[in-house]
């Protein structure tokens, strides 16, 4: 699992882009050999932190993409600040990535 991020300063707003690596199963697919439903496994929550403060949060459902790409804008961080992006999936597995605002 991995999270890659990029943050760019545009005026007084930071444009953040993240790519989260995740298998993503909706829970609706059926295993061809066993006939059983493959259990749902996807990111449920993704949060961006700046100096320990939560500046962005999204709740995601089973329709989320495999390896989801997310782009959003936030105000507050400045160039050279470090942003942390953390994700949690429905099994409680967390993943995290840090990147610098440029």
């Amino acid at each position, binding site marked *: 699992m*991995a999270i890659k991020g990029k943050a760019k300063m545009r005026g007084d707003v930071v444009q953040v*882009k993240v*790519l989260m*690596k995740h298998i993503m199963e909706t829970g609706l697919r059926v295993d061809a050999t066993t006939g059983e439903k493959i259990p749902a496994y996807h990111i449920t929550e993704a949060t961006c932190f700046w100096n320990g403060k939560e500046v962005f949060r999204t709740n995601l459902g089973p329709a989320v993409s495999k*390896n989801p*790409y997310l782009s959003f804008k936030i105000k507050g961080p400045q160039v050279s600040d470090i942003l942390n992006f953390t994700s949690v999936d429905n099994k409680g597995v967390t993943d995290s990535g840090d990147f610098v605002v440029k």
Partner: protein
Amino acid sequence: MCLRIFSAIFLYCLLSGVVWADPAADQTAFKNYFYKKFPEVPVGDFINGVYAIDQKRREQWLEIEEFPPYGIALDEGEILFNETVFLDGASYSDCFVDGKRSKKNYPYFDVKRNTVVTLELAINDCRVSHGEQPLKYKKGDIAKISAYLALHSRGEIIDVEVSGEAAINAYEQGKKYYYSKRGQLNFACVDCHVASSGMRIRAEILSPSLGHVSNFPVYRFKWGSIGTLHRRFSGCNSQVRAKPLPGQSEEYKNLEYFLSYMSNGLKFNGPSTRR
């Protein structure tokens, strides 16, 4: 009298299977067709496929390239290439010494083995020669390693050599495959990617064949993952309801050889994103 002699020689050649091959002339004709059909496209831009001929798709693609979906595969490919240790202690760098790891060295015709050698084939040759199992040829690790090597080959010029009887024969096999109709839908590669290039196929626009091989491996949205050129070939076969062939089969290698030669002079720009 002259005509009789000429006909006799011609018939003899046909019957004996002598090939009147002129790859250089083929290449010139191929390129000129596309230069004439898409006069507004700068020659070097054909490596961008459909994005060279459609403005809207180009804009979407440029935005995607700011944070490309093949990024994850690249990171993994880098680790695979640099950190894999084979059973006998060797690594990929032992086979792919500095000059040899660039895509500009592939494909080439290996006279000794009497076959076309592609980058993916070379990757597995390396593995097998050091006691490892070969990787599958269409997706997964081989595509990730290929993506990493492709990234570092960006800007290199495609310069495939086709000389010598055996190599010319492989080239001609590839060319024959390209121009032959196949599948239940009875399409040849040329039908979509030359004759119908720039036209629509359902919701998509058909890309010109010129520059096709430069940007592989690609992250294709349809696949949701990165894949090799031979993966795309097998997809194309399936689409016309022809039987897809195994990756690195003689047909696909010869086809890659032919297509790469057609794109000589253009720059490598892999890995890339396609739909």
